[in-house]
């Protein structure tokens, strides 16, 4: 028979209080806004679920959500394999290990808005190093301020540059925890490099990769600062991701009700997809 010990609640109380203050209470404010209409002066009118319905039916929201999923999908499909490949090609011992690790960690140390500004200047077609090089040396017509494809390529490249290191470091941590004996055993089995990767390295990296995918999903799905600084959501609405659109509605149009409803939907999607990922990735371990 399971014994229940109510004392456990006492021990999780500090964490519950902390979560309440930094998540639940602020979120309740958003919930409050999402079901009411306000014109200022602290006057509120009950609106029910109208804002939710409006957002869920809005084509503008669908478009932003589509862009957001596309962005996150591209980020994951590029950064996860790339991070694994870089981790696999990094040395496991010797002088170059710290050099590689520090080099890898550098992009992550730069603040988000600085990254956005850096890439903005870097990519400008007339004065930016990359923009100028592409246009005037290679003769490629590249202008992220005019061309949606160029804008997308730039924000994706920027995020890959900024965050692939996280995947690399996590994957590398998984790789170095594999004892030499497994590699030897695999060699003796006659395993090819691919088999070693498939049957030894990948299973050993599975746990850290689950974390990497989750973190990269949540971060890229909630990304705001870098693309906002880089493209401002343009040209047109081509790079207006969900968060940028949300800020436009909340602070640009000051439609607090719809913005609050959108925040909650946004939050629910992030939570749902994260939960799905996590459940799928850890399914085997639970059995």
């Amino acid at each position, binding site marked *: 028979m399971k014994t229940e010990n109510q004392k456990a609640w006492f021990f999780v109380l500090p964490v519950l209080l902390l979560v309440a203050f930094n998540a639940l209470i602020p979120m309740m404010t958003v919930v409050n806004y999402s079901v009411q209409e306000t014109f200022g002066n602290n006057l509120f009118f009950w609106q029910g679920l109208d804002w939710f319905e409006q957002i869920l039916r809005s084509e503008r929201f669908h478009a932003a959500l589509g862009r957001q999923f596309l962005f996150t999908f591209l980020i994951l499909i590029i950064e996860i394999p790339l991070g694994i490949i870089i981790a696999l090609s990094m040395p496991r011992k010797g002088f170059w290990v710290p050099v590689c690790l520090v080099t890898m960690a550098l992009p992550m140390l730069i603040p988000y808005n600085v990254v956005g500004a850096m890439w903005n200047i870097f990519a400008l077609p007339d004065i930016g190093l990359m923009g100028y090089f592409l246009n005037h040396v290679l003769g490629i017509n590249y202008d992220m301020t005019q061309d949606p494809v160029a804008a997308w390529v730039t924000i994706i490249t920027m995020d890959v540059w900024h965050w692939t290191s996280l995947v690399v470091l996590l994957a590398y941590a998984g790789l170095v925890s594999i004892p030499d*004996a*497994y590699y*030897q*055993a695999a*060699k*003796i*089995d*006659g*395993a*090819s490099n691919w*088999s070693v990767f498939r*049957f*030894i390295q990948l*299973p*050993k990296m599975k746990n850290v990769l689950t974390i990497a995918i989750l973190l990269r999903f949540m971060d890229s799905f909630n990304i705001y600062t870098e693309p906002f600084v880089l493209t401002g959501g343009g040209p047109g609405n081509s790079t207006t991701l969900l968060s940028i659109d949300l800020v436009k509605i909340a602070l640009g149009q000051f439609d607090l009700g719809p913005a609050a409803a959108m925040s909650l939907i946004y939050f629910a999607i992030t939570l749902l997809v994260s939960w799905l990922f996590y459940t799928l990735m850890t399914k085997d371990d639970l059995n």
Partner: protein
Amino acid sequence: MALELNEITKVVGGQTHIKPTSLTLHSGHFNVLLGETGAGKTSLIKMMAGLDPIASGQVVMDGEDITALSTQKRNISLVHQFFVNYPHMTVFDNIASPLRVAGMAKSEIQGRVEEAADIMQLRPMLNRRPHELSGGQQQRTALARAIAKESKAVFLDEPLANLDYKLREELREQLPELFAGRGAVVVYATSEPEEALLLGGETALMQDGRVTQFGPTAGIYRDPANLSAAQVFSDPPINQARIVKEGTTAKMGSIHWHLSGAAADMADGDYIVAIRPNHILPYKTDTAFVPITGRVGVTELSGSESSAHFHFADESWVSLAHGVHPYTVGEEHKFFMDPSACLYFTPDGTRIKEERA
């Protein structure tokens, strides 16, 4: 099937770890590498397996030079002293892994894995993962993988070292029959002389990165080529002392005995005598009759055998005899040495061969 090593060496950072080594290892019996920790047993195995680079020399398997061949292509098996199984795979998948890599048909894999599992008594564990097994079962899994693969050479690097005593005895008894008739060259590294004797076959004695002697195990035990070979192949450690030879008499402290054969023919002077503990007995027999009296320091009783450590002529001696013998620690006891079991060496350790009748 034969595995030949021709003058192979291993050099790490300018230091020679394995000095030029030549051996011809045959299938059909166990080939034991016997030496203390750090003697180079594991290095030699890794060189044969292609896991460690060879600085010079050749490895020849069945007439084919495989020196430059990668480990993957050598068709070998290796079982370590620590248990190496893939943690995320079941026992079945672990045993099957080399067969899958080789692209074998599913039905054949099934057959071979089940056969190996039956031999190693792993049938009920096939669906478990390594962490759900005991140490003995984990090592059985590793051995089953080696059996199922049916490779040309099987390297067992102290495979029983991390098992408890009972399991070790049990598996050691099984090992020779497991690999009998499989046609593989079996190389077994151990630091325990007793294991080498129990496994039989041929033994290569290793010391400081070189093979000091190689041949049938029992022969090497009886007839060590030099003092270090005698030291390596003795547990408890072999007794040794300085003697002075005069005519046909060997003098050691207050005692002396008659020399015959090659020992009698050597020039007068200083020599070293070595004698195994089981040839110094606490009672007189027809062969063990040279009396040594010494003060007993430590005694050990291990079931059917008793050993006594005693002091005589500035040396520490060990006697090992069957049966239970009542020694009193701190008191003088009389022991008897068998002069026909004495091994004689020059001061630099070279054996003076005693011709046996």
